[in-house]
């Protein structure tokens, strides 16, 4: 019997966006480890904390959510969750938090090692679970925590009271970090960083917007990888350049009639929720094998940190997906569905995320109605593999496909 020959991965062009973006994401981990060795401060930072602060102050950053996603994608989610659960953490708790708290205890995980932190920078515009997670990290690691509190906004618009509150905290956080590490804020550097952040965001929005073409010039699963750079490095020049390269490539793909979705694009869907990292391959294959391209996700809109004033920057941080009310969240998704000619909505009911999933049934009903598209959901988890069933996923996707076919 012949041995199975594994195909060698295709070499990645070092001038491609994929290479550049992969390198930026990888370098972020390496740079933080190097900074630690040199005795420079390292912060663990929540994903929607204003990057402008650590970037301007020159503090090396690690994003525990990215680390947990990486660990889960490489198959160690359950092992790390087990460690946290043995400490007493309920398996009900967000799996990113469990992976991260396990890492704080073990201080190693070959699937994604990171530099240990000197400070924690917490922003709860993604969820209040983040506060509890970071409180416990601060206790376990005996290091300071700085919280930039961005409450859930029940109103459609961002009011002045919240801008004043968050703006005051922004400078409070800066001053606390200056005092902690004896470093100085530099307005010129801040201006540079905000410039790069806006450039990255503009390019990201434009690149993801290329999905309006039929067929789409890209496979939406690409976004799940590329967004890591938007989370961790959007304030860096190389991130802005890489995002502009991505935009250029997607435009060229369209002109040449090619796509990174390598099947015939028969159906176009929006994928809702955080990726099911432990089953990325299975969730991707279940779509691709049916000619379903996930052309958009809310991430396409999530990193639109394009602003022209301090208050606008604060307002942008108050408008990230999990900080906004149902109507605003719904309208953003309806726009994406309409702009990108979406034919169906596939919702990941993410066991880890009460906030994201907590009003999704009502919101997805409204989106389906407004866009005249079918909605299907499946149960899963962003990092704990025990909460996903491939058979259920397959059945739900098949059902969605059949309705999309009938609607054609």
């Amino acid at each position: 019997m012949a041995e199975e020959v594994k195909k060698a991965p295709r070499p990645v062009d070092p001038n491609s966006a994929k290479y550049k973006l992969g390198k930026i994401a990888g370098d972020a981990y390496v740079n933080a480890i190097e900074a630690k060795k040199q005795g420079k401060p390292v912060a663990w930072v929540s994903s929607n904390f204003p990057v402008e602060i650590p970037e301007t102050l020159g503090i090396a950053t690690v994003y525990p959510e990215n680390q947990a996603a990486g660990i889960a994608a490489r198959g160690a989610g359950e092992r790390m969750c087990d460690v946290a659960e043995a400490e007493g953490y309920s398996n009900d708790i967000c799996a990113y938090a469990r992976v991260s708290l396990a890492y704080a205890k073990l201080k190693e995980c070959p699937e994604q090692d990171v530099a240990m932190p000197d400070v924690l920078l917490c922003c709860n515009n993604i969820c209040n679970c983040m506060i509890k997670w970071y409180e416990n990290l601060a206790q376990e690691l005996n290091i300071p925590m700085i919280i930039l509190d961005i409450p859930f906004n029940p109103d459609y618009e961002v009011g002045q009271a919240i801008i004043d509150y968050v703006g005051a905290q922004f400078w409070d956080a800066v001053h606390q970090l200056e005092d902690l590490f004896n470093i100085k804020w530099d307005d010129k550097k801040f201006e540079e960083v905000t410039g790069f952040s806006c450039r990255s965001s503009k390019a990201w929005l434009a690149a993801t917007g290329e999905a309006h073409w039929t067929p789409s010039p890209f496979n939406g699963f690409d976004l799940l990888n590329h967004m890591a750079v938007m989370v961790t490095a959007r304030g860096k020049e190389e991130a802005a350049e890489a995002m502009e390269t991505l935009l250029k490539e997607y435009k060229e793909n369209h002109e040449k009639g090619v796509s990174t979705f390598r099947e015939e694009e028969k159906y176009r869907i929006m994928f809702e929720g955080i990726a099911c990292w432990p089953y990325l391959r299975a969730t991707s294959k279940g779509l691709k094998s049916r000619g379903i391209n996930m052309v958009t996700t809310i991430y396409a809109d999530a990193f639109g940190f394009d602003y022209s004033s301090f208050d606008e920057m604060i307002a942008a941080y108050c408008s990230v997906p999990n900080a906004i009310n149902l109507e605003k969240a719904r309208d953003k998704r309806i726009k994406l569905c309409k702009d990108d000619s979406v034919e169906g909505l596939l919702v990941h009911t993410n066991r880890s995320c009460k906030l994201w999933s907590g009003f999704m049934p009502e919101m997805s009903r409204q989106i389906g109605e407004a866009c005249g598209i079918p909605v299907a959901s499946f149960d899963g988890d962003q990092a704990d593999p025990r909460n996903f069933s491939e058979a259920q996923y397959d059945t739900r996707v098949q059902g969605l496909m059949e309705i999309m076919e009938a609607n054609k």
Partner: protein
Amino acid sequence: MTSEIMKKFHEVAADPRAQMDKYIAEGKKVVLAAPVYTPEELIHSMGFVPMGVWGADTEIDRAKEYCPAFLCSIVQSILELGIKGAYDGASAIVIPSLCDTLKTLGENWKYAVKDIPFIPMTYPQNRKPEYGIRFTKAGYERVAKDLEAAGGKFDNAALAASNEIYNKHNAAMRKLDEVLAEHAEITAAERSDIYKSAFFMTKEEHTALVEELISEIEKNEKTAAELPVVVSGILTDAPALNEIFDGLGFSIVADDVAAQSRQYRTDVPAGDDAMYALAEKFAAMDNCSVLYNQEKPRVDWIVETAKAREAKGVIIVMTKFCDPEEFDYVMIKKACEKAGIPVTQVEIDRQMTRFEQVRTNLETFKDLLSM
């Protein structure tokens, strides 16, 4: 006399709808106050009767159309009751967004219970600096504006008076907590009724009744508890749970329960601007899983209270799917173990009908404490 007062507490706790009907029949308007900290003082000052809504032990059916199964049953049962008309006649519901699940309650409420307007209360977590207090005040102003739309009227002097009424109630409840610690003849079930009824009566009425009860209890000799414990959690009102506490002989000498003593620890300070003073109260609040505290003083509070009240152990009553409490549990457990205080956790749920696992756990805990 004590038994008559207890009977009244029990009747109110067991049938909040009757209370609501009574207030509405008297021509009063009722505003629902969702967990965990709703500015009842403000609602009261604007001419409404605030009534707490912490859900009920009920099967979840209609709320499943809105909520995934892993949201806590307190929130799910509030929505369930709302959909089924249990709160019909209320002028509005105020829902603070202090945890992720409460954020989703407000959003779902708008579509699930259209007849009762949703009024959001947005609190800051950085509540102690001046800018945090200002933001709290802005949140209260928004609530006041929405309450005016529901027929209320804001007045600074009226709020100052309501702040006083609530401070007086806080004082009575704190005194009650001290008295109950020394009177083990009051059962866990009775204790639950006293605290629970506070959500369904005007504070003037409840204060009077509590003060009356305290003076009656104090006429009795102090009775030492055989198995004194501190209980911590969000909610401990399930009759089956209290029956187990009483059946096994546990005496609650202090509680760190969100629906009980956590409500009454902090007073509104004096000040000309009554709404600012109310915001200062929130700034001063601590020791709760939904209030950010980097140092987690709540953990020490539990350990020190257990020592001060000579509790033999700490019982954590975990409301299933309450992640703020689940995070704190690990720290509480470690701190109690370090201090040599036995600790156990039992998990409860609004939909639970079988409490055998809870009973077995607490029986084992009792054996441990009796050794």
